[in-house]
């Protein structure tokens, strides 16, 4: 609008019209929308997240600690198990030694004068009859082990001395037997042992 025609425009528009136009211009003018400051509560969220993290970390720590604790227990129990296994084996070995047939045979023959039977006799319990013959007296088992060959230094040949009997000369001891008859000069006498030939 040029300034040369303001008088005509003003005169044409009525006051009312000018008020409406001014209001429209007012309305059409761009203004900033007033900002609405919405304050959402922050604290609970943060607390939640940190709580979760804390719980997780602590839980992990506890879990790990308990696992390590279990590992200690495992080692201790394994050691105990090994010790008990060793004890069990020692006892089993002892048991095997007690059940050794050589030991039992020696005990039976020495302490109880038992001998192996020559042949069995069967007793039928329903009829009471016996079958078989007992045979002669049993022969005891020879349970002495072979003696290892000893070297010559430890096993010298026996020294044999001929002793002349002086029977008839009373000895002052009173029992009447002559000393020569009871004693022997065979100092290196060794028990009769069968020499094992290889």
């Amino acid at each position, binding site marked *: 609008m040029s300034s040369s025609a303001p008088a005509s425009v003003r005169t044409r528009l009525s006051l009312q019209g000018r008020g409406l136009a001014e209001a429209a211009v007012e309305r059409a003018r761009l203004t900033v929308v007033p900002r609405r400051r919405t304050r959402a509560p922050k604290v609970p969220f943060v607390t939640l997240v940190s709580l979760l993290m804390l719980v997780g970390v602590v839980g992990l720590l506890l879990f*790990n600690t308990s*696992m*390590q604790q*279990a*590992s*200690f227990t*495992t*080692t201790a129990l394994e050691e105990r198990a*090994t*010790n008990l*296994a*060793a*004890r069990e*084996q*020692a006892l*089993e*070995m002892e048991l*095997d*030694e007690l*059940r*050794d*047939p*050589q030991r039992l*045979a020696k005990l039976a023959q020495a302490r109880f004068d038992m001998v*192996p*039977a*020559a*042949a*069995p*006799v*069967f007793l039928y319990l329903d009829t009471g009859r016996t*079958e*078989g*013959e*007992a*045979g*002669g007296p049993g*022969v005891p*088992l*020879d*349970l002495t*082990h*072979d003696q*290892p060959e000893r070297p010559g230094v430890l096993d010298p040949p026996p020294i044999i001395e001929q002793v002349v009997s002086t029977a008839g000369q009373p000895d002052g001891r009173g029992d009447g037997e002559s000393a020569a008859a009871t004693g022997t000069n065979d100092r290196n006498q060794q028990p009769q042992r*069968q020499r*094992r*030939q*290889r």
Partner: protein
Amino acid sequence: MRSGFVLIAIVLSFFAARLVQLQGLDPEQYAEMAAAEGSVTVTLPAERGDILDRNGEPLADSADGLMVVADPAMTAAKAPELAKFLAHRLGVDYFRTLERLRVEDSRFQYIARQVPARVANEVLADARELAADAMEAAEKAKQDGDEEARDEHEAVADAYGGLATRRDPVRVYPVRDVAANLVGFLGTPNPDGSAKPSAGFEATFNTHLAGTDGEARYQAAAGNKLPLGDNTVVEAVDGQDLQTTIDRDLQFFTQRVIRQTVRQAGGDSGIAVVMDSRTGDVLALADDPTYDASRPQDYDEDAYKSRAMTDVYEPGSVQKVLTLSALIDAGKVTARTKLRVPGSLARQDRVIGDWFDHGLIKLTLAGVIAKSSNIGTVLAADKFQDGQLRDYLTRFGLGERTNIGVGGETAGLLPDPSVWTSQTQDRIAFGQSLSVNAVQMTAAVNTIANGGVRVDPSLILGSAVTEDGDEVGTDVATTRRVVSEDAAHQMTLMMERVLDPEDGVAPAAAVPGYRVAGKTGTAQRVGEDCGCYDGTFTVSFAGFAPADDPRFTIYVVVQNPRNGGGGGSVAGPAFSRLMGYALRRYAVPPTGTPASRLPVEW
């Protein structure tokens, strides 16, 4: 400020260079070093299989053992005191231990090997206690200001603290010398810890018994395994048990009886075999002399083998059983065939005689067996066709290995057809000029006991594979018919006459109340020096009982009895004792049938 930046840049460039070095040049080495920290590799040992008898009783057992080792750097100062302690507690040699505790420039010396775990742990615990006491005394001396005493006590503490244990499994032989000839023993382990078997089943079935070690690799800290660390486990494969057909108590009795027999007769050695007639299971295989498997070092190396399997000898008159049953099966003779037997028989360049002098006597075939007449046997064996006797003997199993799983077994010696002259045949007919091993002969005589069917002898129940790859055991034992049932029956009746008190040569072999069939043998032995018969004898007795339903076949051999006895007087009583024991142990009742009364003369 600029200079500050330059300084920082220089420092950072050092870091960058180091980074390039660590990551760019050979990163694996560092990675390995890192991984090795705290990483533990442990061998999971395989337990060696047990050797059991037929009832599951252990003949060889494995036990956890430990070896005691010492660190000479710590123990040298107080070696005498420590050596005395060890010699007393572990039974080791004092002087050798003393030497070992003083070795220079060494941090590891063996003190005792294969100690049972319990004993070793006790000794170590006491040693630790003594070390702790010494440390306390050292502390006290330090407080008192006594430097000398303190050094003394610290040296003692060091010495006792220088002992440690390592795993060293022990092989235990609970019955010592019973079946030691078969079981063998383990020598000192190889440097890598694996077993070094030295004889017997331990050696022959080593792979079967040994198993495979495993390995566990894990991360550890302060001796405890980290639960979330790397963990690789290869499980150990334990060795398999080996179950033999041996009856442990019967083997014990057999060994004592044969030893007593050899002692009384003044013999060089002896063998006794007890076999189950029906199945061919070897219930006892005894050698004398033998050794104690738990202390093999006390015995000569010759004793480690099983003489029954490795040594050959000429069987003598027991062979007549095989010859004449073959003859009966071939249809040439029967038990009642009449023979005129002269006092001596001239054949080619040798004169054949009998063990007893006689003129012309009239014996039946039963009489030839009962009186053990060589001449009668030769006259009967003339009826064989060419090669027939050799065929039969091969079918009886002579001349080939029994393959029962004993190492070093000899196949025996049956002359080749190309060297089989008529004189050889004459001599083989009564058991000279051929060699057998004891189990071969037992299996051959057992053929008669088993109604003419030869059963392969077995020593292993089930089956097992030897080191050479052979599978042996009851599962793979075969049977084959050698002579007819009638021939075996006739021979049994003839063999019963051998134990007749009047007509037979071995009344001492009888078992009271039972019908027993048997045959004596007295064979000339070949001397090692001259290669000729040296005047010594192998006496034997083979038989089975009850005669009409045989359960056990027993064969007893004594080499060179110096008391002048023969098969009937030396081996016969041993046979009687063994058979009586076996029949009682297995509760075999007498059959109650009347004994054979075949005529021996006509």
